[in-house]
């Protein structure tokens, strides 16, 4: 009861953030459908329910369930030959948006209006993460176009390179002049 009374007193900014949390997984599901994946009713219902719970309780682990549901469904239901389509990037960005939304909503009590500095900081970080995802997608498209063998070994090596790069990127961003960037 108290959760709902808290929700009714949400600041407009928090309402917007929670709307993003609610809508972003649905964008991912729509992108899956656009990419040609078959959507089962249980899956759609599960995504709607879990994203609604995540919007109400952004600091819970329900968000992980949403990520695993969407990612797992894509892994199992994506049409063969279309896995490198642009919709993959849309799904990745939607998941990023969902994650960032949950994070922003859980920074402070729901009555708090997050300051401009924090919003700009996360806009910058989200843009960086989206850019890295786009680069990885381009590389995978190029590799797919060149018909390079897509073995687990190669992907494991690619993952290690990616991990090293993201760590370096995170360190660079942490050490920026602004201190937070």
């Amino acid at each position, binding site marked *: 009861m108290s959760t709902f009374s808290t929700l009714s007193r949400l600041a407009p900014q928090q309402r917007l953030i929670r709307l993003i949390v609610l809508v972003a997984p649905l964008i991912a599901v729509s992108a899956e459908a656009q990419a040609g994946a078959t959507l089962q009713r249980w899956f759609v219902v599960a995504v709607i329910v879990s994203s609604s719970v995540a919007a109400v309780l952004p600091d819970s682990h329900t968000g992980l369930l949403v990520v695993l549901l969407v990612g797992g469904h894509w892994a199992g239901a994506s049409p063969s030959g279309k896995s490198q389509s642009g919709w*993959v990037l849309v799904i990745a960005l939607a998941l990023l948006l969902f994650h960032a939304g949950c*994070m922003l909503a859980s920074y*402070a009590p729901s009555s708090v209006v997050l300051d401009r500095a924090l919003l700009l900081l996360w806009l910058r970080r989200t843009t960086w993460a989206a850019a890295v995802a786009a680069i990885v997608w381009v590389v995978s498209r190029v590799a797919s176009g060149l018909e390079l063998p897509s073995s*687990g070994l190669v992907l*494991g090596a*690619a993952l290690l390179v990616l991990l090293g790069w993201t*760590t370096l990127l995170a360190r660079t961003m942490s050490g920026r002049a602004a201190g937070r960037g």
Partner: protein
Amino acid sequence: MKQPWRPTAALVRAGLGSLALALTAVLAGRSDLLVLATPLLVCTAGALQGRPKRAPRADTRLTHDSLREGEGTTVRATLTDSEDVEHVVVALTPHKFVATNPPGGARGRTLPRPSSPARVAVALVPLRWGTRLVGDGLVGATSPWAGFRWGPAEVYPKTLTTLPMPGHFDSTAPAPHPIGLVGTNPARRTGDGTEFASIRPFNPGDRIRRVHWRVSLRTGTLHVTSTLTEEDSSILLVLDALAEIGASGGINGPSSSLDVGVRAAGAVADHYLHRGDRVGLRVLGTTRHSVVGTGAGKRHHRRILDTLAHVTPGAVRSVDSRRLQFGTSAGTTVIVFSPMLSDEAVNATLTLARRGLSVIVVDTVPDDVNLGDDDLRLRLAWRLRLVERESLLRRVQSAGMPVVTWRGPGTLDEVLRKLGRRAAQPRMVRR
């Protein structure tokens, strides 16, 4: 206060989500799953990179520990050892009669660069006189990339004394029995002053400039104008805190009887102390800080306001008027602020009158009493209490004490003038 940093749900989500997707990508040879994992991988790397090493410590401080009603101050939450902190949140516990800005009492602040100590301020305004604990609540901190969270840690309350905001009061009438040394009230004895007393024959030692030439020429002997000396007076304020009638809405809302009494007493004390008179205070029905001796000056003024701020209504319900020590000297004017709803208050007032003091009763029942509930039985009970009050007020008035309703400036003028005239007449006092 030392609390550890804990991983956030965001880090768990990004870490486990990206791990599951990346592992599946490697095991299944699916580069598209690596694309899905990448943004979460970046977030995880960022969060782990900013892993905090030291736990901060939180404390709060009030900028002012004493204010007037309606004045603002800030609660400053300070986080020391906060080099690993990116965002601080302070959420104060809401209290009655304390308004905060922002309204919920919670504020977050992003630190532009790693710094220690980190500070967040929440403004608060006490809306009613009194002593209350404020500034308690929770403080939390988040590390860069929202990877780890510290707290929420409890911060403990601080005492804030809110002095009553005196209602406007002014009086042009002199106090009836000025018996002090130097003041502004015309006394009964003649001496140096400005108030005309009489024209009398010249005595050795009289000043030449006091000679009244017209009367001297007419009578053929020197006559001088004599004046009344000016002295300070002694005022005792008696506040009835045996009960509080009506619900208080703070400085901007409806007033209770005690609100009216406390603010009126503050205003009267303010007025007389500024005129150089001596003022004392006695609070009926409060457990501590109930007596302030007669005195003058700014420090004494502050002492009276502090005592008024410590008034607790109904802390003591019965007062034995025979044992009450008012510490009054002859000539003291007593002003009783009371809703006159109890025998104890009436008996205490009558006791003062029997000692031969000039007593004025200021009725503190507000015009429109806010009973706080639209219960018919409550309204009926209140009407019965008003009928009882009428008989109590008649007892007071029949003992020769004027009863006036508090209306700010000029409330006491008429009764003080009447008391001044009565003071010059002979009377019988029962002792």
